[in-house]
């Protein structure tokens, strides 16, 4: 019995003393793929994580992001920045959607191929992730958020197709896009990672871009940090909440600006910078608009002169403002809402008082406070995040 116990103990000790340090080998690109990609692109050895995580103040309201497939987003990033995918090889998606400007453009009308000019201001893509779960009629029916100023695209993929094939922007057919992608050697390994095959199709190109754009989220703003620590005073539709109490980390001016924003702007743009509450609105830019916006697409009279309501995240960086970039800065925008709203038969109700355009009559201090508040919506981390930057070697 004693012998047995000794053998037992020695056996146990021997087993316990075994090596225990883990040595895991993670691989993504093969050596050949790394060499090939390295000739054209600056991509990390292991891919970036494109998972979108909402700040608690948004997720607590039931808002959630659309799932992003990382390998498709990695491929989408390259397509997004690839100028070869335009007719004259000078324009990419990123030409009009610049990372430093929250994926908007600082020109009223962006420059497309052959120096052609776009007909509307480039829409900021820097916070698509905020409302990604709400676009696509298949998911949200009439509550869906749509793309382009005139809401003509249902999804990011539709929107990408629209820009790639627009004569003023990239002026390609989707067939040409797919053929050009197929001809570039660096796409083969990226397609293989994303889709398990090197076969390129128009749909797969769009799916990849959509995954990249869906990952664009701005959640590290000062507003988010404060909202995460605060209790909302009002909860509305589509995850919209409003914070009436002062934020501890805000300056007095920022808190005054927040109050003004809640009272005058949040019913359309949302109080928590989640998804915009309204899909579209006529905000009285003109009493007799030449650009009919959504109405030109749908043909509905009451939508003539209406445009998509944008999120205000990173608004500080997305000047010039409105669908035609008519306002050079935020003060101009506030001047308009203060005294410049024009009458229109279909002016949105929130912008009316006694049947007339509601002039908000902001004082100089009000405007300054509002700008101070709007500046808290900037997410500097996202603007400098490498995973959203141009991957091409210059």
């Amino acid at each position, binding site marked *: *019995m004693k012998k047995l116990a000794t053998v*037992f103990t020695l056996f146990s000790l021997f087993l316990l003393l*075994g090596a*225990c340090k883990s040595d*895991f080998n*993670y691989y993504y690109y093969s050596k050949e793929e790394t060499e090939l990609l390295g000739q054209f692109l600056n991509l990390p050895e292991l891919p970036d994580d494109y*998972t979108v995580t909402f700040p608690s103040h948004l997720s607590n309201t039931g808002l959630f992001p659309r*799932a992003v*497939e990382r390998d498709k987003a990695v491929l989408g990033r390259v397509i997004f920045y690839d100028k070869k995918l335009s007719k004259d090889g000078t324009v990419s998606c990123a030409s009009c959607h610049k990372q430093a400007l929250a994926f908007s453009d600082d020109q009223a009308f962006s420059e497309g191929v052959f120096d052609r000019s776009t007909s509307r201001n480039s829409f900021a893509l820097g916070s698509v992730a905020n409302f990604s779960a709400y676009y696509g009629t298949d998911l949200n029916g009439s509550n869906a958020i749509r793309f382009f100023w005139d809401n003509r695209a249902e999804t990011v993929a539709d929107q990408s197709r629209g820009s790639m094939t627009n004569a003023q922007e990239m002026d390609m057919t989707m067939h040409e896009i797919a053929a050009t992608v197929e001809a570039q050697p660096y796409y083969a390994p990226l397609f293989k990672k994303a889709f398990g095959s090197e076969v390129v199709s128009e749909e797969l190109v769009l799916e990849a871009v959509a995954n990249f754009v869906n990952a664009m989220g701005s959640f590290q703003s000062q507003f988010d940090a404060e909202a995460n620590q605060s209790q909302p005073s009002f909860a509305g539709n589509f995850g919209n909440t409003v914070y009436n109490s002062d934020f501890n980390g805000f300056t007095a001016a920022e808190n005054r600006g927040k109050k003004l924003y809640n009272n005058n702007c949040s019913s359309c743009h949302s109080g928590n910078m989640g998804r915009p509450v309204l899909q579209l609105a006529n905000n009285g830019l003109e009493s007799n608009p030449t650009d009919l916006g959504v109405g030109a697409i749908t043909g509905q009279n009451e939508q003539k002169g209406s445009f998509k309501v944008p999120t205000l995240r990173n608004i500080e960086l997305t000047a010039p403002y409105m669908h035609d970039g008519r306002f050079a800065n935020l003060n101009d925008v506030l001047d308009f809402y203060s005294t410049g709203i024009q009458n229109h038969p279909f002016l949105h109700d929130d912008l009316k008082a006694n049947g007339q355009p509601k002039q908000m009559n902001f004082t100089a201090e009000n405007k300054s406070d509002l700008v101070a508040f709007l500046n808290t919506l900037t997410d500097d981390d996202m603007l400098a995040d490498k995973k959203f930057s141009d991957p091409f070697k210059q």
Partner: protein
Amino acid sequence: MRPFILLFAAFLLFSVGCVQHHYSPNFIQTPYLEKKGDGVVTAAVSGSPGSLNGDFHASYSPVKYGTVMLNYLRTSTSFDNANVFGGTTYHQTTKGYLVEGALGGYLPVFFGTGALYVGWGQGQMRNDFGIGRIADLRLQRFFVQPTFTFKNDWFRLGMGLRLVRLNFPSGDIDYRIEPSDIEKIQRLENESPFWFPELGGNLGVHFRPVTISANLVIVGARPASEYGFDGSNIGVGISLELNELFKKRGQKPIIEE
């Protein structure tokens, strides 16, 4: 007996779920050995929310109070994983095995038998997340396992607590695997080896020399899902007690007059 087996078969079907896993426990073997020369072999099928397992076991007492034990576990899963919001659906599989040996000793305790086993084994868990995205992890398991068994002519009851040290010494991981799954694997890499208890038992009906038993094992790692461990396994097994079998065979045949 038939409803009992059918119930378990139904449970197994429902319990084979749709998650990848990096560790699946075999049953805690409680061989009913009482003297030199006793031996038992067992085969069992088991399921959990993550796996369908084949569990094989053999024990033998070469000396009085001493036992040699061999265990072999085969685990596999196959399912289609559809992403929410129109993402791609991937066919995913898990295949793995664990083979281990143990030495043990037993003594009569109260109305049954108490035993203690110490064992070591190694295996592999190969999760294919679709389109060739594979996480191939090697694992080693050391265990100390006190058990208590009771038997009579008709029933077998065994209980055991397995104290496990689970180590993942190496692995080859395709980084195309979704970030949430990579996170789990990195947790294994960073926190391995794991120490945790497993609690299990079996209850069987004995028909000389065969026992049909229901088995259960519960993993005490908290929370098992964070590491891709199956939290439990339940199944049915059939055991053959070799001493009874050979004793039967060794009996003199009855000669009809």
